[in-house]
Every structure is written in C-alpha cells, then in structure tokens.
C-alpha cells in the first residue's frame, strides 16, 4: 500500500539526526515494547509480513509523528485486536474482560536463545523454473495495491537488470493477508540511478533491490 512507510525518495525530512550514545532503548517502555512484540510474533498468530502491514496501515500523520517503538506498539495493538487476542475495551482498561483465545505456542524463557539462533528462514522448495535469468532486462510493474507490497513506489515502472537469483522466497504480498506463503522466485535487480531519478541525477549511482517475480515483466 502507498502508506507513509514507503519513504524512498520523499523530501523535506531534514538532516539525519545521529545520537552520541546510540542506546538500543531510550526508555523502559521501549524495551518492553520491543520484547512483547517479539514474544507475540513468536506465538505464530500472525506473520512478520502481517506485522509490517499493521504498522504501515497506521494513518500517515500518526506514522510519521510516532517514534519507532511507538509504531511497533500501535501495530501490535491492531494485531492483537484483529486476531481476537484482546479487545479495544481491554486495552483501554488494561484489564482482562474476555477469556484468552487459544494460541499456537508461547515463547518460553528457556527457548529464547534457540528461537533467535534459528530465526525464520523464508526460502522454500523450488517447484517451477525461474522465469528470468541473470542478465535479463526486466521492467517493474506499474501497480498500486491497497494491500501490502515490497515494491517501493520509486522503483515501479522502471527497467533494471537481473544480477542474482536468490531462490524461491515467501511472497509478502500474499503472506501479509492470510493468503498463505505463495512462494515466488526472488531476484536481485540492479537499477541505474538515472533510470529512477532522471537524467539530471547522480550518474554514478546504482540501486539494488530484491524483488519477486510477480513484480516483473520482461523489458
């Protein structure tokens, strides 16, 4: 979706603000927001793609004026409510009003190290041949789905060249919306900066994006 999260090429945000200490967390609540988001993700109630969609679906003004862990918190609130794990009223009162819903698993303290060390690979068996080969010129689709996508606006309707084939990966556009993983071939594609930003832009810039087959046509 063309939400506030799709920031590539937007202007007017001003200089990059670095910090001296660069702590991971700037307040106690940020630690908690981080940990409960990871722990709830580990329950397997929703996918990582769905959690990204919950964040990008925030009102643009809300997204842009929220700090990072505020965005996570607001996304998590949406996820727990839409999946029936808690109600708006419960969040408001901070009190259990309806019984818990059964979930697949709970992340136990003794499993944390293992779960983090394993991660969640998204490569899947190859069931059909890749449509494109390294060196092929491809053109990204002109598309504006109202649902989750990982093709940024600045890279739509642009020609590029396939540099690497990563294999078959879970397709976020489907996986974010309870449509299953629908694994698709994933390609590393190089774009000339001038093809994206125009002839007056930096001639010594190129961009590399990882894009799935459904985003592409042969150029």
């Amino acid at each position, binding site marked *: 979706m063309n939400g506030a999260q799709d920031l590539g090429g937007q202007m007017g945000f001003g200089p990059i603000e670095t910090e001296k200490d660069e702590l991971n967390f700037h307040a106690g609540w940020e630690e908690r927001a981080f940990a409960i988001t990871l722990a709830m993700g580990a329950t397997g109630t929703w996918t990582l793609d769905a959690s990204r969609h919950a964040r990008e679906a925030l009102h643009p003004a809300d997204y842009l004026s929220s700090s990072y862990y505020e965005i996570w918190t607001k996304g998590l609130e949406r996820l727990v409510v839409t999946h029936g*794990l808690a109600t708006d009223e419960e969040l408001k009162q901070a009190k259990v009003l309806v019984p818990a819903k059964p979930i697949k698993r709970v992340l136990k303290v003794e499993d944390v190290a293992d779960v983090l*060390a394993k991660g969640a690979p998204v490569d899947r068996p190859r069931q059909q041949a890749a449509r494109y080969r390294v060196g092929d010129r491809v053109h990204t689709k002109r598309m504006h789905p109202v649902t989750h996508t990982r093709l940024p606006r600045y890279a739509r309707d642009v020609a590029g060249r396939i540099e690497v084939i990563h294999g078959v990966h879970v397709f976020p556009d489907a996986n974010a919306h309870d449509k299953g993983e629908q694994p698709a071939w994933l390609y590393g594609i190089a774009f000339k900066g001038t093809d994206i930003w125009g002839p007056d832009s930096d001639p010594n810039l190129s961009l590399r994006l990882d894009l799935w087959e459904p985003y592409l046509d042969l150029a």
Partner: protein
Amino acid sequence: MSHDHDHSDLSDIELRVRALETLLTEKGYIDPPALEALIETYETKIGPKNGATVVARTWVDPEYRDRLLEDATAAIAEFGFTGRQGEHMVAVENTDETHNMVVCTLCSCYPWSVLGLPPVWYKSAPYRSRAVSDPRGVLEEFGVRLPQGKHIRVWDSTAEVRYLVIPQRPLGTDGWSEDGLAALVTRDSMIGTGLAIDPLHKEPTA
C-alpha cells in the same frame, strides 16, 4: 484509541505499552521471563562486534573472504552468528571503484545477527527517504566525502535478504592482528555510512 489517564505521571505511550504487557501476560500469551531474555540478548550478546569479527577475518584470510562472498550466511555461521534477521545474508565489498550503502526504505530491515539492533537514525524518515535518492549527500552528513567519480551502490532491503558491507581495509595495517583490525571496523562502516577507522588519522565515529 483514547485513554483517560490525563492525570497520570505516565505518558500515553507508556500506559499503552503497560496495558498491552499486562493483558498479554494475564491472558497467558507471554512468559514474562522470556521478555527479559529477549532484551538481554540484544543489550549484551548480539551487536556490531559480531560483524567486526567477520570483517577482520575477511581482511586477513582470502579464502574466508571468498567463502563469504559466495555464501555469506554459511560463512558468518562459522562464527556462530546465525538466526533472526540474518537468515539470508549477503556480503558486499567496497572497492576503489564502488562504495556500498544499505537502507530499508519500507521499514527497518537490518542484519541483526551481525550488527544487533539498528540505531534510531537508520529507522528514521530522513535516512530512509534520502539514502536512495541522495546517498552522496547522506554520506557527507556522516562526514564521508567520496571522490566525485566513485560509484555508489545503494542496497534497499526490500526482501528478507540482509546486507553486510565489507569496508576497505585501512592502509598501514599490514601485519595487524585480527583483534586489532576488528577494532577499526565501526558499525557505520558495515552499513556503508562510514569507513573503517584510519589508524593514521583516527577519528571518533560510531
């Protein structure tokens, strides 16, 4: 969602996080000690030292470098750095001709297994918006001025592939130990917003 806690000392967001944690714990979805373990892991165990170890090895061991460029996930796993947000790693090497820089314009994708959690600026709108359109300007804000003719390649982390930049080894470090070299590898140099520390002109960078 509105909250009626105007008279509390806690901010709205603190109350919201607290409400979530309380509810999710009381409903049995969360094992509270697991939260402490998650925080502790990224506060104390996983951080840019992991990545610096990999880079230093790359500088001293050409065979390791080749393995890393061929299959970074496996080569990084040789050190035991695996897992969350590092499941599909790719290493990209800076050269005399090309400087690499990593961003996630759509969210905050970052190679946690080698760099830990991303700094605030990496997740912020100014960096995410401009890294792809004006990387040279971004680099100047970080105090890095590249020669005009040097090619910049920006890697937008749009899938679950995570990128680790291998900075160029500083001159004058022949014969240095791996530990000594690793101390020159800053986090920013592995994102591509910095260079490795030049021991001849040591500058304090992140």
